[in-house]
C-alpha cells in the first residue's frame, strides 16, 4: 500500500502574489465596467458588452478574493 502525500493544487507560497495580481486585474476590469456604465447613454448601451466585462471581472475578483482569504490564513 503506497500512500502518496496530497499537496494543494497551487503552492501555498504563491497565494499572496496571485491574490495581488488577480485582484489588480479584476479591479481594473471592474473600473472599465463602471466607466462604461457611467459614460454610455441609456439608448446605445450594449448588454453583451456589459455582461462580458462583468463576467471577466467577477472571475478575476472571485479567484483574487479566494487567494486573499487563503494568503491571510482563512483556509476555506
Amino acid at each position: 500500500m503506497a500512500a502518496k502525500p496530497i499537496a494543494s493544487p497551487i503552492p501555498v507560497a504563491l497565494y499572496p502574489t496571485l491574490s495581488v495580481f488577480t485582484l489588480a486585474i479584476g479591479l481594473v476590469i471592474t473600473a472599465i465596467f463602471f466607466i462604461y456604465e457611467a459614460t454610455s447613454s441609456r439608448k446605445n448601451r450594449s448588454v453583451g458588452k456589459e455582461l462580458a466585462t462583468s463576467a471577466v471581472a467577477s472571475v478575476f475578483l472571485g479567484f483574487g478574493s479566494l487567494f486573499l482569504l487563503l494568503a491571510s490564513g482563512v483556509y476555506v
Partner: protein
Amino acid sequence: MKQSSVVDLLLLLLAIALFATPAFSDLVLSKVERRIDVNSQIARVTKTLKVVNSGSESVSEFILTFPKFLGNNLAYLSVAHSEGKGKSKRSLVNLSVREADSKGIPDSISVYSVALPKPLSKGDTLTLEVVAAFTNVLQPFPEKITQGEIHLVMLQESAQYLSPYAVESQSLSIKLPNARIESYTKLENTKLQGSELKYGPYKNLQSYSYSPIVVHFESKAAFAVAENLVREIEVSHWGNVQVTEHYNVVHRGAQLRGEFSRLDFQARPNPRGASAFRHLLARLPPRAHSIYYRDDIGNISTSEMQSDSKKTELLIEPRFPLFGGWKTFFTIGYGLPLSDFLFVSEGKRFLNISFGSPILDLVTEKLIVQVVLPEGSKDISVTTPFAVKQSQEIKYSHLDIAGRPVVVLEKNNVVPDHNQHIQVYYKFSNINLLSEPLMLISGFFILFITCIIYTRADFSISKSSPTYLAKLQWDEVLATLQEVQSIIQKCLATHDKLEASLRDLSRTGDIQTCKAARKSTDSLLKDLSKELKPLLGFLQSSPSASHISPKVEELVAKEKELEEKLMAKHTTVVEGYEKKSSGRDIENRIASQQQKIIALRQEIEDLLEFIDEI
C-alpha cells in the same frame, strides 16, 4: 423437568472443573520483572512475564490481573510478545487485550484477558511485555499543603505480583524521582539504591499472593490534568490542516492551604512554591506555523517557541502559576502543511494525525477530537489503535452550503501513551474544490448584474411630469450626439485610409489600386452622410438640443469641407501621376490644400472634444 435442570447444573459444574480450572492453574510464571516509573504524575508499569505451560493441554488465553484500586485507574494497557529467538531478532507484536468478567476471581481484582498469538502447548514458554499506565494512583499526602511546603505523594502497590498463576520468581523495582523519600514499607529483600527502590526477588509464590506496600515520597512533577480538551482538526485541501485545542487545565496535586503570596513566590521560587508549575511544554509536529496561544481575554504573550526540522516546541506559560486545585483555560492553535498529514491510497484519501494532546505529561480526563473534513467528503471511516466513541456531525464554516462532515472521537482518561496516529479515511473529488471560488465568482457577478439592472431601471414616480419628459428628451439627445460622434470618427478613419492609399501610390506608383480605394471610400462616405441626415434632423427639431445643434451643424459642415478638400487633393495627386509629373511638382500643387486639410482636421477634433464634454 426438574431432573433435567439438575443434569444441566452437573454438566455446568463439570465444564467449569474441566475448562476453567486448567486455564488458571496450568500456566506458571517462571519469571516476573516489574518496573514502576513514578517520575511524572502517571505511574507507568512495565512488566516482563515469562509464561510456561506446565499442564497437559494447550492454552490460548492469558489472564492479567490488577488490584481493583489500580484497575479502576488504568488508562492505557498494551501487551506485546517478543518474537524470534535470541536478543538480536526481538521484535514486539501487539496482542489483543479485552476486559474479562471476573468469573471465579475475587471482586477486588480487575481482570483482563490476553489472546495469545498461538496456543501454548505443553512445556512451551512465551515472553510477554506488558505496559500499563495508571492515573490518579499517586495520592497527595498530606492532601492540603501551604505554599512553602513540598509536594508529597503516596503510591500503593503489592510487593508480590498478583496473578491467578503461580509465580516462581519475581522482582519489583520502583523508580522514584530524585528527591526526598519520606518512608517506604520494609519487607525482606528490600533495598533502596539512590532513587530506586527494589523488592525481591521472591521465590515460589502461590497464586493470588499479595503483600501491600506504601511508598511516600516527594514529587516534583507537574500534576497537570486537562479536565476537558477539545481538539478541532480542520482539513482544507487548499493546503492546510488547522488544529485548534481548547484546554481546561487543573493542578490535581495537593490543594493549596492558606493564601498565595506573589512576593514570596517571585523572590524565592524554589522553596516557596515547589508544588506549583509555571509552564507546560507542547511538542508540535515539524513545520507547524501560525501558532497562537490565547484565552478569553486575548493573546497570552508569555510563550516561547523553538523549531527545527524534527519538531516545534512551544513553551506555554499560563497567566499565573498553578497551585493545587487551581484551574486555567486557554486555547492554542496551529497550522500544519497538508502534504505531511494527508495521503491518498487506493482511491481514498486519509488523514494520518496524532490523537492526543501535544503537551508533554498531560493527563486528559475527557478528550474530544473533532476532525472537520472538507465539504463534499463521502464514505468516512476511522481507524484507531484503541477503542474510542465515534459519532458524526455537520459544521458550517466559511463558504459552505451543505456543511462539512465532522468525525467526533471521544475518549476518557487519555495519557501520553495514547498519542498514536489515527487515520480518517474519506472520498473526495477535486472538482469540489472549485465550489468555493465559484461561489465568490457568482457573488461578484450578482453584484454586477444588479448594477446593470439599476442603470436600466426607471425610478421616476410621475411619468408625465415636465422634468421627467425633459430628461427623457435629453437622454435621446445624448444618444444621438454619441451616434453623430461615432459617425464622424468613422469618417475621419476613412479619410486616413484615403491618405494611406496616397502614400502607397507614391511608394509603388500603382494607380489602379489607388483609384479602387477612392471608389470604396466614396461609397462609404456617402453611406455615412446618409446615416447622419436623420440624426441631424432630430437634433434640429429637438428643443432641448437647441444650444448644441449649431455646434453639431458646424462640425458636420467642417467635415464636409474637409472631405471635399481631401478629394480634390486626391484627384490632383492621381492626375499628376497619370501625367507622369515629377514628385516635386505634385507636392507644390497640393501644398496649399494640405495646409487647409490640417487646419480643418484640427478644428473638427476641437469640436468633437467640445461635444464630448456635454
